[in-house]
């Protein structure tokens, strides 16, 4: 099924998105955040907890902030102390955090910068090793190419139980396993540590949990002969840190949106923009596919009325991702099947949207999200909605298919719910495999008209945002009907302007 898309209009949308992100990219390049600085230290090897339960990276960065030197970056003082003491980054951070080492006065000079570069080289080698290992495994075990990747979630709160459920899901046909995070982890200004067994509505994203799950999925992948991808969330107040830990532990996908934290978690806009940029540069380096969160707009705003906001946001997310050095092949732009099932020809509108997005971003691994808003608890009715969603996905050739779960909105999926979702999706995608190739849209019909209308409205919206600025659009509640002030939100105090001589050696080395 092909839509006759106005390519000139699509090109104008891209140009407008560039105009929108341009001024913000200038703001981003002038700033850093606590989380960015902690990321540098974590990538250099600062791991574990400080005495007071705070992660070491947090404690070290807090000390540098107190000493008034953070504005030049954490890299310089820590590299200077590594030179001065001959100790590892871990030991230097431990002593900095406990106060047994003083923050050095002189952090300039080629020795400091050389050490910073050497430590950065080591970190980049570790990322490269993880990347190569993924490539080798995918090559050995084979790749799903002729149908959407089937994606399910686990969310027990206990990493060991998550593993049991994830392995079972893989055996039932899942291609991607996302471990949902504990509620409100996105508002924690640190990444918890170690294997965790208690969470609410999900499991804490920690480096150790990443490692345990990746190891279990590697074993399962080899057994079932298919590389199973692991997904987590680089969103909230610790976007770049999660990206770095995910990159080190070979996560394959991260939810990573340029605006989600602002809109849905009330995180300070500039903080989010700076964090998302650095986190995406890490994802690009690690070849981690990002998933953007436009699907969420439709859980608050109406899916028919606000469809164009999804497309406009996808262009903005694409523009930010390009600026962070991401190839299109890593941009899992998101959207969702959320039109009210009572609306006549609603399914045709879903097809129009899915096909439009598919064609506007031909190389992007588009992520299609299942119905949630109209899942009422009648699991039997919900199962039918999910079936129509599966059909839309296979017809329009979506790349990442988050399987709808019949108990959506009731509880986290039961083992059997996941199996039913996977088997149902497999059925629909097999029986209707080539349907999309054999369908044509009728000029002037519901699908063609709807797609053209959505694109046209997306262009108009992008034009309006390019004139007023993205900050203003967020303040007016353009996305998801939620209003966010430029100076409001959490984590603003952790976002700062770089001083002269600022150094983040990763910024020099990463694309973007």
């Amino acid at each position: 099924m092909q839509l006759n898309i106005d390519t000139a209009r699509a090109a104008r949308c891209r140009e407008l998105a560039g105009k929108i992100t341009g001024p913000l990219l200038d703001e981003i390049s002038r700033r850093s955040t606590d989380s960015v600085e902690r990321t540098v230290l974590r990538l250099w090897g600062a791991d574990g907890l400080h005495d007071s339960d705070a992660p070491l990276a947090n404690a070290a960065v807090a000390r540098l902030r107190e000493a008034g030197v953070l504005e030049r970056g954490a890299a310089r003082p820590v590299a200077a102390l590594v030179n001065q003491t001959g100790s590892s980054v871990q030991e230097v951070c431990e002593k900095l955090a406990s106060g047994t080492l003083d923050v050095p006065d002189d952090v300039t000079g080629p020795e400091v910068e050389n050490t910073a570069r050497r430590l950065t080289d080591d970190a980049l080698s570790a990322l490269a090793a993880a990347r190569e290992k993924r490539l080798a495994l995918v090559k050995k075990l084979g790749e799903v190419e002729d149908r959407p990747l089937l994606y399910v979630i686990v969310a027990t709160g206990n990493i060991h139980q998550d593993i049991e459920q994830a392995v079972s899901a893989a055996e039932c046909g899942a291609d991607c396993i996302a471990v949902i995070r504990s509620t409100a982890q996105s508002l924690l200004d640190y990444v918890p540590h170690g294997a965790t067994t208690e969470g609410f509505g999900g499991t804490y994203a920690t480096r150790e949990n990443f490692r345990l799950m990746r190891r279990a999925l590697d074993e399962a992948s080899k057994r079932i002969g298919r590389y199973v991808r692991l997904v987590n969330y680089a969103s909230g107040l610790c976007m770049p840190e999660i990206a770095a830990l995910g990159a080190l532990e070979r996560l394959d996908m991260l939810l990573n949106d340029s605006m989600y934290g602002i809109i849905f978690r009330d995180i300070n806009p500039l903080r989010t923009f700076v964090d998302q940029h650095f986190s995406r540069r890490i994802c690009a380096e690690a070849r981690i596919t990002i998933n953007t969160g436009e699907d969420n707009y439709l859980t608050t705003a109406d899916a028919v009325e606000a469809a164009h906001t999804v497309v406009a946001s996808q262009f903005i997310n694409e523009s930010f991702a390009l600026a962070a050095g991401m190839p299109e092949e890593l941009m899992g732009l998101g959207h969702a099947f959320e039109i009210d099932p009572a609306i006549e020809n609603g399914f045709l509108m879903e097809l129009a949207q899915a096909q439009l997005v598919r064609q506007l971003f031909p190389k992007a691994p588009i992520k299609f999200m299942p119905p949630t808003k109209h899942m009422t608890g009648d699991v039997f009715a919900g199962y039918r909605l999910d079936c129509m969603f599966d059909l839309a996905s296979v017809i329009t050739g979506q790349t990442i298919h988050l399987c709808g779960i019949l108990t959506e909105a009731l509880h986290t999926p039961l083992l059997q719910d996941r199996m039913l979702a996977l088997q149902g999706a497999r059925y629909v995608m097999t029986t209707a495999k080539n349907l999309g190739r054999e369908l044509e849209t009728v000029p002037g019909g519901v699908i063609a008209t709807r797609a053209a209308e959505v694109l046209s409205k997306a262009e108009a919206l992008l034009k309006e945002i390019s004139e007023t600025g993205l900050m203003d659009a967020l303040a007016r509640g353009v996305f998801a009907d939620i209003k966010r002030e430029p100076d409001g939100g959490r984590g603003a105090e952790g976002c700062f302007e770089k001083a002269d001589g600022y150094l983040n050696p990763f910024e020099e080395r990463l694309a973007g």
Partner: protein
Amino acid sequence: MKAYGDTRDDGMIQISFTLPLSSGSKAMEAGKAYAAALGLQDVRVACAKPAGDGFTFYVVYGMCGAEIDPDSIKGTDRGESMSREETDAFLKEHLKREAIVVGAALGSDAHTVGIDAIMNMKGFAGDYGLERYGMMDARNLGSQVEPEELVRQAERLKADAILVSQVVTQKDIHVTQLTKLVELVEAEGLRDRLLMIVGGPYIDDGLAHELGYDAGFGRGTLPRDVATFIARRLVKQLE
């Protein structure tokens, strides 16, 4: 009263479940035995199939002899909930002003899932939250709001209703905090003009009344249920 399948009082029910058991020859019998242990008679295992290694998924039908007396069922029948539009129209006509609602996850509770589901624009299961209501001024104060702070805000905003969410119930901490809130409201002399509502997965109307609240809302509550209760009660108080 018994479940109605296709004949009155046949007690026919359908259940589905998973057993941590490989789907070998014993699986069918195990499913049957489990259903029988649940108290089903004439068990029919309609489906027993693998759900990954070491698990079997079942769909089972059976007759259940259990019965209840509907007249003995306690609980408040709040009646059918109104839609958002109906509630807005109802408030406009009768209260003739916006209802002011202040909500929070109380005390040590950091979970905003519940309060967000009811109050935020987004709502829950396709039902918009109170912030979306034209005739409600809904303020969600978020998580870990101390009882003192909540009362202060309710007084400052001249709230008509307080909505508190308690998700964490470990060591009965919810009881302590909920009691404290009621006592504070009473001490401030606000109890008569303030509706007090509590919600959470393990909260029910009975517990809420016991603790001195006007209503308790449990699992599966939609924003419209809470909105309807607030609207009807506020209007009733005018009479």
